[in-house]
């Protein structure tokens, strides 16, 4: 079986752990409990009849990515950068953060930008964020309602398999 390491990163409180829990256990909690260091777990999914084991590293959020210990990025095939649609501080420097991730990560790693907490914002707010953000997001999710959560990881998994072949 192929197995791939995926790292969830971004500022604190944006919903990384919530996405991790929604994807792995199908559950959501309104209460915020910050992650210390890194939490690792896996989920095996099937894509086009092939089994893929996704090893997910849910790390403690940092406002700036260069604060994340370098060793956490070791061997990561996928990097998911999550931001919070309701908090400008979590995306205002996004161009630099992504640039840093490209440098620190494996040159072949796939980076996905995720706009989370879609359930808290309306159409108008989404357009407003889209207009001011320096880099467009790849997918918009809600860890609360589950919107696009499985899709995010499946799509990433598919790209990882394609890249491996």
């Amino acid at each position, binding site marked *: 079986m192929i197995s791939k390491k995926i790292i969830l990163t971004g500022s604190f409180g944006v919903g990384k752990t919530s996405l991790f829990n929604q994807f792995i256990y199908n559950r959501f909690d309104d209460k*915020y409990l*910050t*992650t*210390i260091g*890194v939490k690792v777990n896996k989920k095996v999914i099937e894509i086009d009849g092939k089994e893929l084991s996704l090893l997910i590293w849910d790390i403690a959020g940092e406002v700036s990515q260069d604060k994340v*210990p370098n060793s956490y990025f070791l061997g990561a095939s996928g990097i998911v950068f999550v931001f919070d649609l309701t908090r400008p501080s979590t995306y205002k420097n996004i161009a630099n953060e992504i640039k840093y991730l490209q440098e620190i990560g494996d040159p072949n790693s796939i980076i996905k930008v995720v706009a989370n907490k879609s359930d808290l914002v309306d159409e108008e707010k989404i357009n407003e964020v889209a207009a001011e953000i320096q880099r467009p997001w790849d997918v918009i999710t809600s860890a609360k309602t589950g919107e696009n959560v499985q899709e995010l990881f499946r799509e990433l998994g598919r790209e990882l398999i394609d890249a491996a072949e």
Partner: protein
Amino acid sequence: MQQNEKTGIRHLSKFSQFFLLDDRAQLLASCDSIVATQHLPQRPVTDWFPFLESIFQQVKSLQVDTAEIHFQKITIPHHQLPGIYDFSFRRIQLREGAFLLWRIFDYTALYEDLQHYQQRRNELEIHREMLELRQRQMRSRRDLNDGFNLVLENFNHLQIAYFNHLRRALQSPVNMLDGFRPEVTLQAANATQYYIQHLSQLLQHLQSAMAEWQSYAPATALVEASHFSPAALVQQLGINFREQLGQPLAIQFASVLPERLQGDQGGLWQILAMLLYSAAAYHPDSSFELEIRAQVAGEVAHLTVIVRESLGREQSKARSDQDDLQLVTRLSLARQMVEWQGGQIRVSNDAKQLAIAIELNLNYRFA
């Protein structure tokens, strides 16, 4: 410190464990101090341990002379490793060949305390952001007050919960933490501005307390046994204390002290220094005393060290949050470090609930 007979690998008992692996991730040896390995399935370790599965390719590429890889603060949900650990990997050469040495260090108590800081820092930071956002949108005076009260309520609630946690965690007499001011009362005029300012300050303090906290963790993973004289160690500490703080430190030695002990001398030094320097911050007019005695039982010496401070925390002096946090950080660290060494720490007050005595009990082998 113990030495595994089969491999000669040294480890700190109870708070660390090593696993010797081959390049197919088969387990060859371990010391079973945290996880009992005989119950584990006879399959590659990567099968039951997702963390290892995710980085095994990288670990395998390590050479005997390449630097160790270190991972901090790792949690594996629903696993037989229930705490928060640091991991290190390196390739070592044994007679039978070159193998992978994976070591785990249990820092659960320390990291749980750190998590409380981080939780509080993050919640406050998010509150501040929300407040700033709302402030821009808020029009009327009433809106402003409502918003402010909401945040203040949260803030006080947070503070109280946090200090209660610390009291329990440190099991310290109440007066030691009395300098803490859990309630914040503010004037309504310009309150939001003041509040944001106060928050920013507090956040900065939290940030530096966390940095101090973290600076201790990796060092303690490197403990190695050495030989030392307890009397000489304490004497040197007294000299440093006098030189650095300009205050005398009375030292009481028991009439008989073991000449040489074997153990983590650096760790003991750090613990005592941390306790003394925090005690020195309590009150400008305090005097300090350090007492050391030993009880011998077979091959082991039970060492007791007591740090005494005469006046307790000064109540009148306005203390900053920074001092408070630093004090708590140091005590909590000392507690964790003493635990690592298999010892105990106890804090008590005199009858008038003023002076403070901190007693340490640690066991060492004779050199």
